[in-house]
């Protein structure tokens, strides 16, 4: 006897050709959306961690004509206040050349020699366990040197966190949307299969097949299609991750570990085809059982 074919010849259906590719693209988008959300989360986490306990104090440049000694004096007053504040661990003054270097992308090179009024920049490290009262400190600094700004990075980090959350919600919505479309596609293909093979199904019923027997034919087929589609989609996602890693490699020192996945995340990516296949299988089974119940 030859290798046993399925009782319902679903493998010859048109869906057998297009559904794996449809599933593949959906899995691809789901994988990329999930990876984007994860990466964004990691990125923000890393920035948050890196910036926690770090403050920047900006002392505005004095009015033109004020002597260098007076400029130094303004900065020293701020440094003194910071140094004696409880909860401040370290105070480091940026040199003019360092400030010029920071401003170089906006104002061009050779800034230090151009006699432009540069603000005084002070990096402050605080005890994260017992930080100083920032509002009080900011008031003291402003009183000592009007216009002095205390930047705890929370404002822009908060915006970044909002952005990250938005991206995560968006990615979640994409996963849900694409997942729903995939489920609907399987439902449609299964119903089409039931309609196309109605005669075969009727014969099987008349021979004594119960509905779960018929459903098994469809669920096995959907499992195979899901596995094929899921494997193709995951492979495409993997290729995209590796290619993006290659492209971003040279600038990775500037960017936090974008697209560097943990072992668990690689594991999840590897499980994606199986999860897709199981979803397809369960969808097909429920569709068949639901549809057959309405048949005579």
């Amino acid at each position, binding site marked *: 006897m030859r290798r046993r074919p399925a009782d319902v010849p679903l493998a010859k259906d048109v869906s057998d050709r297009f559904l794996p590719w449809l599933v593949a693209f959906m899995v691809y988008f789901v994988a990329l959306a999930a990876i984007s959300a994860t990466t964004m989360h990691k990125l923000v986490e890393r920035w948050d961690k890196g910036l926690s306990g770090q403050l920047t104090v900006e002392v505005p440049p004095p009015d033109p004509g004020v002597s260098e000694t007076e400029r130094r004096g303004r900065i020293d007053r701020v440094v003194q206040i910071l140094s004696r504040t409880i909860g401040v661990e370290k105070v480091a003054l940026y040199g003019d050349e360092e400030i010029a270097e920071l401003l170089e992308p906006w104002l061009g090179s050779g800034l230090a020699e151009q006699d432009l009024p540069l603000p005084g920049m002070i990096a402050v490290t605080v005890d994260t366990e017992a930080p100083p009262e920032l509002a009080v400190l900011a008031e003291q600094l402003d009183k000592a040197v009007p216009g002095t700004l205390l930047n705890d990075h929370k404002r822009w980090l908060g915006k970044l966190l909002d952005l990250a959350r938005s991206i995560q919600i968006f990615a979640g919505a994409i996963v849900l949307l694409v997942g729903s479309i995939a489920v609907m596609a399987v439902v449609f293909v299964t119903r089409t299969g039931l309609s196309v093979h109605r005669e075969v199904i009727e*014969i099987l019923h*008349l021979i004594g097949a119960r509905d779960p027997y018929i459903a098994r034919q469809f669920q096995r087929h959907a499992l195979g299609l899901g596995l094929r589609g899921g494997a193709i989609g995951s492979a495409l996602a993997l290729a995209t991750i590796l290619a993006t890693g290659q492209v971003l490699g040279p600038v990775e020192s500037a960017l936090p570990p974008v697209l560097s996945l943990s072992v668990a995340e690689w594991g999840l990516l590897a499980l994606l085809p199986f999860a897709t296949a199981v979803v397809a299988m369960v969808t097909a089974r429920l569709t068949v059982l639901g549809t057959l*119940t309405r048949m005579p």
Partner: protein
Amino acid sequence: MVRFEDVATNYGTGPDILHAVSLHLSPGSFHFVAGPSGSGKSSLLRLMYLANRPSNGRMTLFGRDVEGLTRDERAMLRRRIGVVFQDFRLLKHLSVAENVALPLRIAGRREDKVREHVTELLAWVGLGDHFDDLPATLSGGQQQRVAIARAVIGQPSLLLADEPTGNVDDRIAVRLLYLFEELNKLGTTVVIATHNQALVSRFSHTVLTLGGGTVRVEPAPDSKARDAAEGSMA
């Protein structure tokens, strides 16, 4: 085995094909269903193999009222019925052996037993050399034998055959009838729908004659004689 009490049937909202049909088929009996084309022979058989439901009346099969059956119960009853369809209804994409094996696989029999039974049965119907052939490559007569093999492989209690001799010559038709008689001797209740009056006359079995939407039961000539003989002996 099969009992009809004032049973009527129709298709959709159409008129009744059969109405007020009452009959009783006892276990191990052999019946012909005769009548002109369109008289409802196939409809009667469709009721018996649970493809249609009575629109009126009461029908019991193996002692169960078919009206209240769940889908699972209907399936389990169908496993006790072998059907030879008029158009064979073989699955075109499956080989001869796979077609014949279907009832056993559906019933969840062990694969080694399935192979054993299929081999035996295909040899019995003279198709031992066509194990892996697809139905389309067989003649009408051969396809018919595959359909018969599929119908009987599950050793059904009730065998229904709709015009089983319609596509074969008289010689093969007679051989097929002998084959059904063999099964009947093994205890299977056999019901054969045919419009071949010559065949009905040649074999001595009860005839259910359909006409005007009702059925008339005519005892087999031999059994009439036997009844008469038994009556005179009493």
